[in-house]
């Protein structure tokens, strides 16, 4: 398939799936089955796109002079599309299992917006200019809102308000401001290798412009705009898996990285030193979120703050402004996606099988759910950064990037963070396998989650291993 067709396929297939979901709303097996099938086709397209060399820009339509909706495949975008494309069918399989196992309602509405969110993620991944990215960014926000408030409880509605409030406000007040500033300064919004800002802006102002983007991209959950993430935990776990691994947060950090590389330019950032402040903010975010994670006993809350911390890695990679760091950040997009989605899948499995949400109640659960807990261990090790799991590579690359740029303290930050990850993730694994079981679990035979859920989490756990060995395929060269 030509690159053009692949782009259209990646954008159109999720829309097709969503339309079919509506049409087949009264035939659940058909409805969910077609979503899975289309997901697999999408994954295949994403894989194929990843393998093809860079293509030309495809312009969909022109809003007005200089404001085009266009798509340009480039390495970083193709990576994100790959992550989203491959994890979508996996997550769909899991969702089918979860929704039926946990007895959730309104499946059709759920699956409909799920598919639209993937469509939006693809749009972000493949966007060729800031306007296109912004359009799909907003579509993503609004299409995930019904997913966050799915349960319909007062708590869910409140979480939805926080979610929408932070994401829309940040995108309108800061991100759009940044985008339009770029437009007025340079006359264009297109992503170009090496950045487009050099020469058009007084270096004094670059840190502020960078700040507009860093805080405008609320989906990257950079502190202090991270509150929406733990708030969104109130949603069903497939949403958390989607939010935290596939679509929303990855779209956020992807955007940060893409803007850093293709709008500012790695060299421009390094020469002007304008991203140094972001190194510190990201470092703070990494450490502070890890500390908060340790204090949470609700499993999903802990995982949420872990995500905030891990997203900080990617922003850090963008801020370090070296090619190695940027590559590490890109690698981490994939590594963290695989690892975190595994962890969330396990959290959901635990909920469906035993209705447990608090870590304190999960003593000895590892013996009752060995498969789940093993997968959890894999995911945790990847996040901590232990070989032979994917997270190890991205951590190494980030450390290398820090060295390149002379940020010694960052090395310390990364190492302390790994230790903290070990503590708060390791605790869960250790409790599961080695602690004395709490009352309800004594002498229970193995009781795992349904197969629909086990299969995906094993798949993603394995992905973490595969990514480690296949790392060559994922090193992106950003020059400089």
């Amino acid at each position, binding site marked *: 398939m030509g690159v053009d067709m692949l782009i259209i396929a990646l954008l159109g297939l999720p829309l097709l799936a969503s339309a079919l979901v509506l049409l087949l709303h009264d035939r659940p097996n058909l409805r969910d089955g077609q979503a899975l099938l289309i997901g697999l086709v999408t994954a295949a397209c994403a894989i194929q796109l990843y393998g093809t060399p860079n293509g030309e820009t495809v312009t969909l339509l022109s809003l007005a002079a200089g404001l085009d909706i266009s798509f340009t495949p480039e390495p970083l975008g193709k990576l994100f599309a790959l992550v989203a494309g491959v994890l979508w069918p996996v997550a769909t399989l899991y969702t089918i299992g979860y929704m039926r196992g946990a007895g959730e309602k309104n499946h059709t509405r759920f699956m409909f917006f799920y598919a639209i969110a993937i469509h939006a993620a693809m749009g972000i991944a493949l966007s060729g200019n800031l306007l296109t990215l912004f359009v799909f960014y907003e579509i993503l926000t609004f299409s995930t809102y019904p997913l966050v408030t799915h349960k319909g409880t007062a708590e869910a509605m409140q979480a939805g308000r926080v979610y929408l*409030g932070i994401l829309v406000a940040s995108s309108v007040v800061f991100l759009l401001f940044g985008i339009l500033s770029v437009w007025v300064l340079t006359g264009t919004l297109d992503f170009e290798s090496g950045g487009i800002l050099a020469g058009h802006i007084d270096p004094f102002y670059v840190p502020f412009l960078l700040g507009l983007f860093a805080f405008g991209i609320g989906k990257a959950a950079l502190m202090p705009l991270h509150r929406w993430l733990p708030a969104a935990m109130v949603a069903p776990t497939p949403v958390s898996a989607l939010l935290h691994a596939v679509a929303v947060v990855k779209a956020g950090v992807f955007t940060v990285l893409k803007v850093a590389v293709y709008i500012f330019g790695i060299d421009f950032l390094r020469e002007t030193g304008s991203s140094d402040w972001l190194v510190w903010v990201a470092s703070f975010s990494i450490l502070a979120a890890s500390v908060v994670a340790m204090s949470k006993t609700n499993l999903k809350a802990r995982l949420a703050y872990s995500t905030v911390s891990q997203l900080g890695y990617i922003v850090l990679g963008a801020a370090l402004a070296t090619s190695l760091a940027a590559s590490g950040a890109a690698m981490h997009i994939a590594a963290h996606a695989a690892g975190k989605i595994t962890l969330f899948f396990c959290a959901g499995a635990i909920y469906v099988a035993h209705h447990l949400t608090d870590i304190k109640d999960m003593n000895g659960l590892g013996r009752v759910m060995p498969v789940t807990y093993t997968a959890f261990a894999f995911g945790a090790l990847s996040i901590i950064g232990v070989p032979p799991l994917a997270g190890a590579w991205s951590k190494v690359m980030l450390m290398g990037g820090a060295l390149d740029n002379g940020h010694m303290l960052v090395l310390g930050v990364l190492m302390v963070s790994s230790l903290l990850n070990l503590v708060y993730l390791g605790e869960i694994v250790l409790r599961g396998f080695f602690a004395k079981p709490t009352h309800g679990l004594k002498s229970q035979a193995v009781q795992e989650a349904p197969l629909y859920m086990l299969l995906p989490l094993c798949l993603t756990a394995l992905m973490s291993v595969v990514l480690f060995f296949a790392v060559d395929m994922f090193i992106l060269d950003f020059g400089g």
Partner: protein
Amino acid sequence: MMQHLPVLQVLLPLLGAPLAALLRGRDMAWGLALLLTGAAFLISAVLFSLQYQADGPLIYDLGGWPAPLGIVYVIDAASALVLPVVSGLAFVATIAARRLVEAEIDARDHALFYAAWLLTIAGMLGQVTTGDAFNIFVFLEISSLSAYALVAMGAGRDRRALPAAFNYLILGTVGATFYVIGLGLLYMLTGTLNLMDLSERLAEVESARAAFTALAFIALGLFLKMALFPLHFWLVPAYAYAPSAVSALMAATATKVSVYVLIRLMFGVFGVEFNGLADAIGLLILTLGIAGAFAGTLAAILETDLKKLFAQSSIAQLGYMAIGIGAMSLTGLAAAFIHLFNHALMKGALFLAIGAIAAQVGRASMQSIEGAGRQIPITMTAILVGGLALIGVPLTAGFISKVYLVRALLEQNFWLLAGLTFISSALALAYVWKIIEAAWLKERPAGAPVLLETPAHYVPAWLMVLATIGFGIFAGPLVDAAYAAAAVFIGEGR
């Protein structure tokens, strides 16, 4: 016939008004109004294309008397853009008016209602087409007087329409009188009333002080008419208590025309280069504009009556138009025109949809729409899209307006103002989301009246919604037309 189109544009509704007053049969007055507004819309479309092809202003001498002796009608890029907005919205509002008026106004008054309706539309069209400054005043008053009467007709439903109409009358007349005072001063200085002639002669006037005074009076009068903060207090009660069809028509058109007249006088007659005009008054308008944007948005967040909420929102949106004007640049003026166009579409859609609800339950409040998302999904979706357009979500017309407005500000290095514009825009999310939550995320309380929707209710609103989305996606022609309109006043005129 073709050469008489500029005058027919105004004459048709104008002559139709007394006719409508005589038609006492069922719906006959409405039918006539529909016919005439449709014809007016057609004419404005033709005029737009004629002007576009001619690449210069079309000038029509009334009675054959050439300028500057006689009164002329001028169709240039600016009026050619605004005419279809006014007539188009008038047409769609008339379509919706049938059901809305049936529900809200006593049958014996229908003929008179439509007479006033046609008069106010004729007045607005006249303000846009004419090239004579005093003629603007005449049509301004024709439009306003009938508007006062139309607002007062809401008294059948809610007697607060009467003091609202009276306040509107007082403030509107004061505004118009200020305009006349300023015009008198201009006449004393130049000896002419023809807009193009005025701008030429004004350039030669030595007494800048008198000219500034004239500008101050004229501007003040028009600020009142366009409800620029802080002269906006008449608008909310007038829109809230008027009959729903009137709210829709006026929200979409009346203040827009005053914005146009302001641009025409300030830039067309005085001109940006006029003796420090830009510095003195530009900053003032920018400040008032952003203040209005915040005042309107914050007030809207606190409102529970939907009509008042969107009326406050209109104050904010007019603030944005003022910001575009205050930027005193080509892009700024183009942005003002773009938003003039888009806001007419968005607010037209919203008020028509709200009107459909108000016509059924008497007062469209937050409480009355709880759970309405399930009962009247089509109407509520119209409100959703309209709301998203107000926030400035991409792919809606509101986004385009915002982009060009901020671009105009950034080009002039008004970074702080740009930031403030974004903040007020984001705040709009608060009141839009209150409505969305009420409609879709709450259950309809038992005992609440069942809401119906028939095509007559939602088709006019959806026409405007589709236009909002259409001009959000295919904005190119609009942007070009707006720049052409702005170029009439700044830079090379056409």
